[in-house]
């Protein structure tokens, strides 16, 4: 049993166990960069497709920039969601979490947080470059980044539910995407609208608040739901 798994099983506070898991996931990911790079490269390539498919004219691209950014972020997140639980499920660590006596909800929240840092956060960092490449004005960039931060956090949480439901299934990744996509549509609507308003020079407060409320809902309910799903999938 790994040192971290041992530590998690030791009688310790739930919060500490969560923190250990969070650290461990980040450290493990440092050894395998491809998990981090894949969603990022996917995001960059998808956003490149649109100028190629539509037009090199920035004025035209500016109109579709919000949609392109958010759809690409959604697709990247769905692609990345599979990796949240896959390796732990394969090597039996997931069962250790169940047996550890620590609240699974908190452990999953910790894992999702680490997962976001590895897959969602890079998208946020890169988004100003992509947005500018699609014609967005400099003044809109901070709002775009804020919206994408909230949005990708929510997507990671939704993805956790999907990942937990599809553990070990063949073509699980595709199924995960199909299951999560309808749930992510409101997020897409509000998020793209917030970026659209920002690009147009208006206040994006309304949709941003709506996005934030979705995040609050997701943070409170998703880890719980994912924990129930893990139990259903593993037991």
């Amino acid at each position, binding site marked *: 049993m790994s040192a971290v798994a041992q530590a998690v099983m030791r009688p310790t506070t739930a919060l500490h166990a969560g923190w250990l898991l969070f650290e461990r996931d980040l450290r493990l990911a440092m050894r395998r960069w491809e998990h981090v790079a894949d969603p990022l490269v996917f995001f960059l390539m998808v956003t490149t497709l649109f100028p190629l498919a539509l037009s090199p004219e920035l004025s035209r691209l500016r109109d579709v920039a919000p949609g392109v950014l958010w759809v690409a972020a959604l697709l990247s997140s769905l692609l990345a969601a599979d990796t949240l639980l896959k390796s732990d499920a394969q090597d039996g660590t997931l069962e250790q979490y169940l047996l550890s006596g620590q609240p699974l909800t908190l452990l999953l929240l910790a894992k999702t947080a680490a997962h976001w840092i590895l897959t969602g956060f890079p998208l946020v960092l890169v988004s100003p470059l992509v947005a500018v490449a699609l014609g967005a004005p400099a003044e809109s960039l901070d709002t775009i980044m804020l919206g994408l931060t909230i949005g990708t956090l929510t997507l990671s949480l939704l993805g956790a539910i999907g990942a937990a439901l599809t553990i070990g299934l*063949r073509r699980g990744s595709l199924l995960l995407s*199909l299951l999560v996509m*309808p749930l992510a549509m409101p997020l897409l609507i509000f998020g793209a609208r917030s970026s659209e308003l920002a690009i147009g020079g208006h206040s994006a407060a309304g949709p941003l608040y709506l996005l934030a409320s979705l995040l609050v809902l997701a943070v409170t309910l998703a880890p719980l739901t994912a924990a129930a799903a893990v139990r259903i999938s593993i037991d």
Partner: protein
Amino acid sequence: MWTWFHKLASPPHVYRIAGRLTPWFGWTAFLLIAAALYGGLVLAPPDYQQGDAYRIIYVHAPSAWMSLFIYVTMAVAAAVGLIWRIKLAHAVAASAAPVGASFTFAALATGALWGQPMWGTWWVWDARLTSELILLFLYLGFMALRASIDDVQRADRASALLAIVGVVNVPIIHYSVVWWNTLHQAPTVTKMGAPSISLTMLIPLLMMIVGFNIYFLAVLLIRVRGEILRRERSAGWIREQVRA
């Protein structure tokens, strides 16, 4: 009272009762729908604005209603099955899904067919049609998840959780789609509202809705019987009852 409830959860009992009830529900539904068809197509007068095209409402509205009602039913049954571990409830959820999906498809198709003469295009991203489309995706996801899991128990419970997540999201999705629709130019033709309802127009519509509901019960009972058989391991009552 308790023995009645226990019997309700007993598969062989439900199997037998369902078999006896199905023809009653089936024929009642048939008569109601036939009568509603006559009322809607023949007796009701043409609409002032939409002419005879409005008659599509007699199949569109009940389909849309059923698509939503069945989803909620499915989610409630799934939740009951998950919380109280009643296999029969899972059987009901599994049975309801394809029926609900088919009504959602019907709502979309009839909606498009109604939209073309009214708005001039086969598809419009109006709030209702878009919500119906997303509902179809929710149904398909539920069915796809079930189909991907070989173990019946895991399939039941995983899809139940998904259905609960879905039903919680339905109001969120609907609100966000309405919000999105009002932002951008709504279709220039006035919304596909119900025609000014005269009684001769309304009664066939209500009859059709009731007929569809009873029809759903009949089909549900047929499917549930099959689902019960799929889940039953013990030989005894199957060989006695099923051949009869």
